[in-house]
């Protein structure tokens, strides 16, 4: 592999993975904060307002990190992937520019009002500013997903004389069926992160015995919403996304499942280590016929394996793709189990005294981040060897004028910078958690 290509791929993968740790919480919390603000408006209970303010402070820190790590993403299409930008800019420039015009302006304008304007605004107006931030962040998500969906399943384009692709149908681009499933699945995933973080901090307060009233609000909100979204994540959104793969990227599906040979009544592999050279799975734990059912809704249906496709269409990194997919699905299943049990205990009125369950909620905090990251790795590794599926290979899209040495220089720079940002983030958030939801200080603002 050309080393500049490798550096450019690592560059994007590193910066986008770090970046997405923040927007997933931004989008998830934006929704939960609107719920808390709505409850506050309805019940006139000050606890909900304090809860909303507490999460707004976390949101503010998180949002800054999301913005500063997001700007490099838009730049990198041009800096490190200029041949791709020249090729596809006529189409995906549309969705990326729309994100700026419709989502960023909305978010940035109302974020200041939402974070610092509570005293200047009426409660209802402040509620509206929270809604505007929520709409802005979720719109932003849609435009990014529509961009990625076009790279997974290009629609609404035509080839121009110079070989580039140009927009031929705006509505096909915006209503890409792939985008809708991916969006639903992704946003539900972001909501899960928000719910687990909220429930986790709430459970921490309950175990600590401090801010108990607020802790109960956090746990209740996080568990009820978390249960809904954990289930939505599997069905229908995960299922729908999978069916898109069956139709449009069957080779990706085979690689995710490490199904080397096509067969009727294909089994589902739960655990096992794929050996690509020997085309088999070591130490497999399998459930017979389930893959056929999930794919075609028939137990004996034939599922195409990797052997049904020429090798130059296989994703290059099958083991990593296989693990990403299995980690995502495995964690998603565990999330459903945790949330259903927690909801049952909540319903029976026992959750706040079940210390073992509160401990599980506290410790579950990092896992939605891992699952969301693994999900994105599945999507992007699964798209390989294509940059735009079927139209442009990844090896043709990077910036040929930028040497590997220059790329490495900025990659290392970003690593150093992001390490500092990550430490700062943890430091500031830990501080907010310790200070708690009841404002005992002038918050420094």
């Amino acid at each position: 592999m050309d080393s500049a290509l490798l550096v450019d791929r690592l560059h994007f993968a590193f910066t986008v993975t770090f970046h997405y740790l923040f927007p997933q919480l931004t989008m998830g919390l934006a929704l939960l904060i609107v719920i808390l603000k709505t409850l506050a408006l309805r019940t006139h209970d000050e606890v909900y307002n304090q809860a909303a303010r507490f999460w707004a402070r976390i949101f503010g820190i998180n949002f800054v990190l999301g913005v500063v790590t997001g700007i490099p993403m838009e730049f990198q299409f041009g800096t490190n992937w200029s041949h791709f930008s020249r090729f596809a800019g006529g189409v995906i420039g549309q969705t990326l520019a729309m994100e700026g015009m419709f989502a960023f302006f909305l978010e940035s304008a109302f974020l200041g009002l939402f974070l610092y304007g509570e005293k200047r605004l009426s409660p209802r107006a402040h509620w509206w500013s929270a809604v505007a931030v929520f709409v802005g962040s979720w719109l932003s998500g849609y435009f990014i997903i529509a961009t990625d969906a076009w790279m997974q399943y290009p629609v609404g384009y035509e080839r121009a004389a110079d070989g580039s692709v140009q927009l031929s149908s705006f509505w096909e681009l915006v209503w890409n069926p792939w985008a809708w499933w991916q969006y639903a699945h992704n946003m539900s995933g972001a909501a899960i992160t928000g719910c687990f973080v909220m429930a986790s901090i709430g459970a921490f307060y309950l175990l600590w015995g401090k801010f108990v009233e607020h802790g109960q609000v956090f746990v209740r909100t996080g568990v009820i919403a978390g249960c809904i979204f954990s289930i939505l994540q599997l069905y229908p959104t995960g299922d729908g996304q999978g069916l898109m793969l069956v139709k449009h990227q069957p080779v990706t599906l085979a690689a995710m499942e490490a199904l080397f040979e096509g067969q009727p009544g294909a089994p589902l592999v739960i655990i096992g280590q794929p050996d690509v050279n020997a085309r088999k799975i070591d130490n497999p734990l399998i459930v017979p016929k389930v893959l056929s059912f999930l794919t075609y809704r028939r137990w004996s249906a034939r599922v195409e394996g990797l052997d049904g496709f020429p090798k130059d269409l296989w994703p290059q990194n099958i083991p990593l793709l296989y693990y990403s997919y299995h980690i995502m699905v495995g964690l998603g299943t565990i999330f459903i189990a945790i949330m259903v049990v927690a909801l049952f205990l909540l319903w029976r009125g026992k959750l706040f005294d079940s210390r073992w369950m509160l401990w599980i909620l506290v410790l579950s905090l990092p896992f939605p981040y891992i699952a969301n990251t693994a999900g994105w790795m599945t999507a992007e590794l699964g798209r390989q060897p294509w940059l735009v599926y079927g139209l442009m290979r990844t090896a043709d899209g990077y910036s040929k004028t930028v040497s590997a040495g220059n790329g490495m220089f900025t990659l290392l720079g970003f690593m150093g910078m992001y390490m500092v940002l990550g430490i700062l983030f943890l430091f500031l958030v830990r501080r907010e958690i310790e200070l708690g939801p009841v404002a005992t200080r002038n918050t420094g603002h």
Partner: protein
Amino acid sequence: METLWFIVVAVMLTAYVVLDGFDLGAGAIYLVVGRTHEERRKILRSIGPVWDGNEVWLLAAGGTLYFAFPQLYASSFSGFYLPLMMVLWLLMLRAIGIEFRTHVENPVWQGFYDVIFSVASILLAIFFGAALGNVIRGVPLGPEGYFFEPLWTNWRVGPHPGILDWYTVMTGVIALVTLTTHGALYVVTKTEGDLNLRARKAVLLTAPIQVLLTLLAIPVTYVVKPDVMDNYRAHPAGILIPLVVFASLGMLMWSNAKAKETAAFLASCAYIAAMLVGAAFALYPVVLPASTNPSYSLTIYNSAAGHHGLVVGLIWWCMGAVLALAYFVFVFRMFRGKVRLEDGGY
């Protein structure tokens, strides 16, 4: 259609420089004008609710550039690789300087972020000026429409220049002085007392330098790139632009001396807008001149996206722009008037 999008991108970039320019400038004078903890908080408070929105103009302009002129976006972003990445790092440092400073009430912590914020603001102003200098001077484009510029070569203006040569360093300094004036005038409009007075005094110092540099820049640019005058010769009405430049400079100095705060700030806005419009007018229809061979230059015609995309884009762009303007009017009205510390925030 291509011309229309050229105007749109130019307007968005101008909006960015005028808007984010004042908070960059406020950062540049921050350490000098803001002496006490309260004064620094006032400066931050004056830009706090708006700086992020101002910066979105850069992102939105970048997105619009990507969509309307993909070839220009691809070759300029990869060609200006290193300085762009450094701009990104500075934007990050500056953002956390503004936003994270207030989270911990500790003079050491805050002193650290004060310096980060101010130095990043100063460097960004210089970088943006140098970037504009590069676009005017031209870059070593190859026949494929790509180039790569190191940070510096021999500091001379030639067919294979670096990002920094004596000309682009000069434009960087002009940008710094201009934005310092601009930011100081903004701080003047938002504050009272000593801080207000000190910011006004800063302008008394920077504005004359700005006049001298502007007078210097015009002939120097003509020497570096003689064809900048072509459009002015073809369309003599263009001569209005330099007139606006000097009228607004005069207005700026006069209103600052008379303590007409809003008028002085608006004059500075007009000066910046006129300078940028003058540059865009001189370049058109070229968007990235080649220093190697003029036929390699990128123009609005050989770098634009397909016709259908440009037509469709116009519809949603207008809708988005109306919404964005509405938000800006709303937010600037909400936070209008002089800054008071007791209102909360920063």
